């Protein structure tokens, strides 16, 4: 492990406070460290090879950087990382893949201190191993993107099946291909996606991309009913942005039937209230039931005086305690004097049950 001195740090980087253990010969250090002559030569070579997209030479250059005795650790690690990040965007050959694979667990030695929570923590200055893994990940994504794009363009089938069984990196590449494919190509895969989702395959993220691009209610519905929680949650956000109001409301009602996204769906329905009167009725019908607290919060957020009055009516006249509690919650959460006034009146009414009055705070 190597820490570098402040003086050298400011000289080399202008910003980073780093520390050398024992500065032997400052001049020699400066030559080999980032900013020094050897460093500049090697960095220039990386830039030159990157501009030419010469992956074979970049791999050779990477090997040289690993062993060049003119470079100190910090300079070597900076150059290795820089070169790896550049290589991530160039299609590799076998030699490049092998060279980068050998760096997956490269032990970087240069650390910096970071002030955190009142104490100092050390962090790697240039994490070469992480950069190597990043390059491999990017290569996998890009290869998957090219394959999926080709299949989409030629009308080939199997891309959905391949997606549900693929690694995370490969799935990212396929998703990217679907985001940029033409709409007619996506239409061809709609039925396959719905079937795949209904049979329990993990096709949710891909289906959501297609649903969003085609603005397709049937596909949205399949996502809301079958996808994992995170994807279904993303679908709720998407539907509010792109779907027509009536379609959005019916889709959000479907989402509200699912416990893990019910609250998010009900709050989203609340945002439809001023565009769709039916949304208000949907929310009032939920008071006293599962998700009633979320429905109350959604109604409160409308800040609509008519909604506030209707909540007060439920509080004062309904017989079911839980429904009244939800109405009371809605009034407590609603902004403005109107809701407060209703609560004060309820509080001062001798007919109001004490167990509810004490919640009017």
């Amino acid at each position, binding site marked *: 492990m190597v820490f570098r001195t402040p003086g050298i740090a400011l000289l080399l980087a202008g*910003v*980073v406070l780093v520390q050398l253990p024992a500065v032997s010969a400052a001049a020699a250090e400066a030559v080999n460290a980032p900013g020094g002559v050897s460093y500049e030569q090697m960095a220039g070579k990386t830039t030159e090879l990157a501009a030419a997209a010469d992956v074979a030479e970049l791999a050779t250059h990477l090997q040289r950087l690993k062993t060049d005795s003119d470079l100190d650790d910090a300079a070597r690690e900076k150059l290795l990382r820089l070169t790896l*990040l550049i290589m991530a965007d160039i299609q590799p050959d076998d030699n490049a893949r092998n060279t980068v694979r050998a760096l997956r667990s490269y032990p970087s030695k240069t650390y910096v*201190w970071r002030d955190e929570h009142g104490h100092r923590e050390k*962090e790697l200055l240039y994490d070469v191993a992480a950069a190597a893994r990043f390059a491999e990940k990017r290569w996998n994504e890009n290869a998957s993107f090219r394959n999926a794009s080709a299949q989409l363009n030629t009308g080939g089938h199997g891309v959905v099946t391949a997606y549900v069984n693929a690694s995370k990196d490969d799935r990212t590449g396929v998703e990217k291909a679907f985001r940029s494919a033409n709409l007619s190509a996506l239409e061809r895969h709609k039925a396959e996606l719905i079937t795949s989702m209904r049979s329990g395959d993990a096709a949710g993220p891909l289906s959501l991309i297609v649903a969003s691009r085609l603005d397709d209610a049937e596909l949205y519905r399949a996502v809301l009913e079958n996808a994992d929680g995170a994807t279904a949650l993303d679908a709720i956000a998407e539907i509010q942005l792109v779907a027509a109001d009536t379609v959005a409301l019916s889709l959000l009602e479907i989402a509200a039937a699912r416990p893990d996204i019910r609250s998010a769906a009900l709050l*989203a329905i609340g945002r439809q209230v001023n565009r769709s009167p039916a949304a208000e009725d949907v929310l009032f019908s939920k008071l006293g039931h599962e998700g009633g607290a*979320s429905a109350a*919060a959604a109604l409160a957020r409308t800040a609509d005086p008519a909604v506030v009055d209707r909540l007060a009516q439920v509080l004062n006249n309904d017989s079911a305690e839980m429904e009244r509690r939800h109405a009371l*919650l809605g009034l407590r959460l609603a902004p403005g004097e109107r809701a407060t006034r209703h609560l004060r009146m309820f509080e001062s009414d001798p007919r109001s049950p004490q167990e509810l009055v004490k919640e009017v705070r």
Partner: protein
Amino acid sequence: MRCSRLCPALVAVCLGLGTQSAIAACVFDQFGTITNPNDPSCRDVQLRYTRSDNSGNNIALGYGVPFPVDSLTPVDGFRSYQSLLDQHTALDVGNDTVEGSIVGQTVSGQDIRAYAIGDPDNRTVDGGVEPAVMIVGGTHAREWQSPEAVTEAFELLVEAQDDAGIGQYLSENLNMIILPVFNIDGFLITQKYPDRTTADVGQPRDGRMRRKNRRDPTTGMAIDDDIVRPPTISLA
């Protein structure tokens, strides 16, 4: 300009990306504090978190950037402050054994709320005086998991109070005080800028990476929360 308003470690990332021409922006002293915070080349740069785009002023995280989600119940992600507050109020209104109180205010005027859980007496079942415990969340603004975890504890304690087991034992023999979000002002700033970060005088990060509240220690007043126009004083 990519590196100008970063903590040293992040500046190091910038160095690795070969943008050295832009890094003379923010200079850190030996304590990690920025010494030229009002230099425009340091002050005016914002960095944006992304899933995989590392270009320009973007920082690729390698996973989706978490945005606050509107949901009273837990989701695969982090709830917005408003949703958390609504859920706390719902637990209060929906249960006779929960009593919410306003225990203070932030410098921007937000009510700080705490909730007592348990039976209304201060006696244990065998007549002793009930001890009390307090759970506080959301002290460091950027640590979104803390209000989530404390809210989850709140939900569990309420659900379990009639379980004829440990939940009921705690309800009958302990005063449990839950304060789910302590640093509301800071938390709201991090949720207002969920994918952006920058630096200020006393703390190298603001926006999503803000840790502190909004108190100006020299006046006791709230400071501006707009990271486009950062404060010129350090924060309490």
